[in-house]
């Protein structure tokens, strides 16, 4: 079987669609995470593929189903954190030969197909539906939820894996070339002018600060809160490898990457995989963990006019995304117990939550809100997962946290100032991403 990308029709990208037709009929039950690592160590047991198999088996076990009950698999086949296997680099044949291979030797090492997984998980004997939600876990979740709602699958695994190799972020390949093509040179993207990854977000943040009279140091409480929450996330990178609290002083003293974006405003690339088990609300009732119902999914597909999004473009898009998220779930922002919108880069989290209207926020309010109690113990938790800043670049901590909080399995990270009933997670970018509304009840 050859796996296809999800068709555009599976994403809810426009306002005015009304309630999601499958609201409350799809549920998340099982969760599985691999261990984290900063980079691949070159061994067969710690590849992207191995991590992904580990996470999938954990999710199956966590849900309490037998592997032969699984009939669907949705994943993102693109797994790079910015690290690429350079053309001409020797292939690690000892690692490759450890696994059952597809026709691409880097499958399972620097990319991941559904076919590779099925070849190496012989216990998945009844998978009849596979699909790619390309981008990140936020895409895959949306595709899996829609697939179950439409009856394409009934018990479906959702997976995102990441590989990270030796070398500095995005500094190989075309970045090291003496000459580049004319199309590359005119951008957008890195271009011959050399913007780092966080440059675009830094620009939007700079304009935001000028417009609303805010400053970079106002981010410090948010950053400290995110790392604190991340250190309470035992599946995360910082908790597992570097249990260091980030103080406001550390943050303010950090070196710049693309001023006003500093080192800590950029998430740290890591190796990690995570998987969830989704099923119908009906089937979920009999599984091992409490079902977390999906009330809606919504997607953003903003189009920028020229080289880099302006603040006006960003705010128009996040405002529209917020409306889509709430409309399809049939809720208002006041119904949200907490939010887990994306944060990798830290300097755009405020665009997401202002667009959502979290706790009545309007554009320009978020940095003042960060100066209040945004902790997991308070009435207004901001990013209780800690996000990518708190646990490394996975783009899925926020989804795991929503499920765990509502299931009552978030441990020391549990929100205590609010009852975890309805939450939203998603991303990545303010100009483009996918978002999910989670609930303790189906209606």
């Amino acid at each position: 079987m050859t796996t296809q990308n999800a068709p555009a029709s599976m994403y809810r990208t426009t306002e005015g669609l009304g309630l999601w037709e499958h609201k409350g009929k799809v549920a998340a039950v099982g969760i599985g995470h691999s261990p984290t690592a900063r980079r691949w160590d070159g061994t067969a047991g710690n590849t992207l593929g191995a991590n992904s198999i580990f996470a999938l088996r954990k999710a199956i076990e966590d849900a309490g189903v037998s592997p032969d009950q699984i009939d669907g698999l949705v994943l993102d086949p693109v797994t790079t954190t910015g690290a690429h296997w350079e053309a001409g680099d020797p292939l690690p044949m000892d690692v490759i030969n450890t696994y059952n291979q597809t026709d691409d030797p880097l499958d399972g090492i620097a990319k991941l197909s559904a076919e590779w997984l099925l070849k190496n998980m012989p216990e998945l004997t009844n998978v009849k539906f596979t699909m790619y939600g390309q981008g990140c876990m936020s895409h895959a979740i949306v595709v899996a939820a829609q697939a179950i709602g439409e009856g394409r699958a009934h018990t479906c695994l959702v997976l995102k894996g990441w590989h990270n190799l030796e070398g500095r972020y995005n500094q190989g390949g075309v970045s090291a070339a003496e000459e580049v093509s004319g199309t590359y040179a005119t951008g957008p993207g890195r271009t011959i002018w050399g913007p780092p990854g966080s440059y675009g977000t830094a620009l939007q943040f700079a304009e935001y600060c000028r417009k609303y009279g805010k400053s970079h140091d106002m981010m410090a409480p948010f950053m400290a809160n995110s790392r604190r929450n991340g250190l309470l996330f035992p599946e995360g990178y910082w908790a597992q490898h570097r249990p260091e609290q980030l103080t406001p002083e550390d943050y303010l003293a950090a070196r710049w990457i693309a001023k006003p974006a500093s080192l800590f405003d950029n998430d740290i690339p890591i190796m990690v995989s995570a998987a969830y088990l989704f099923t119908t609300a009906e089937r979920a009732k009999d599984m091992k963990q409490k079902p977390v119902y999906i009330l809606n999914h919504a997607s953003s597909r903003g189009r920028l006019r020229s080289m880099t999004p302006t603040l006006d473009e960003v705010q128009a898009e996040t405002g529209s995304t917020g409306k889509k998220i709430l409309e399809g779930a049939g809720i208002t922002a006041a119904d949200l117990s907490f939010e887990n919108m994306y944060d990798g880069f830290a300097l755009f989290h405020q665009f997401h939550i202002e667009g959502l209207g979290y706790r009545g926020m309007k554009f320009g309010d978020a940095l003042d809100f960060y100066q209040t109690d945004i902790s997991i113990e308070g009435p207004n938790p901001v990013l209780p997962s800690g996000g990518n800043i708190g646990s490394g670049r996975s783009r899925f901590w926020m989804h795991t946290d929503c499920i765990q909080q509502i299931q009552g399995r978030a441990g020391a990270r549990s929100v205590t100032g609010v009852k975890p009933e309805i939450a939203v997670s998603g991303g990545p970018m303010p100009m483009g991403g996918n978002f999910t509304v989670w609930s303790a009840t189906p209606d």
Partner: protein
Amino acid sequence: MVKQGVIPDELTKPFWDAANEGRLVIQNCTACDRLQNPPAPTCGQCGSGDNLEWKAMSGRGKIYNYGVVYDCPIKLLQEDQPFNLAVIMLDDDPDIQMYSHLPGTPVDDVPVGASVEVIFEATANGQKVPEWRVVS
């Protein structure tokens, strides 16, 4: 600052040829009367590639925004860090943006909103590229 050399390709060759002649041209859809940058095979509005031309610009603009790059992924630019990286809005159409290192402007002392004019600099392989200088 010497940027990576540029090898013009089919899509962008008119842009680079004009730069070598000291002219700034931007893609324009004659059906929509709409400029677009970066260049693309089709118009971002009507979706057609049949009505695209390269239109001469005045070479005037304003500094819309900027950041300061301290950790650049491009190897050739790393010895020049930190450096300004600004976004220019063209006077011909403020929706159209171009990047600039703002030669002559001190690092992190960028006058947002100031007027700029285009100049042309040689890249590593001699291909010229549009750059922007603050108009005093």
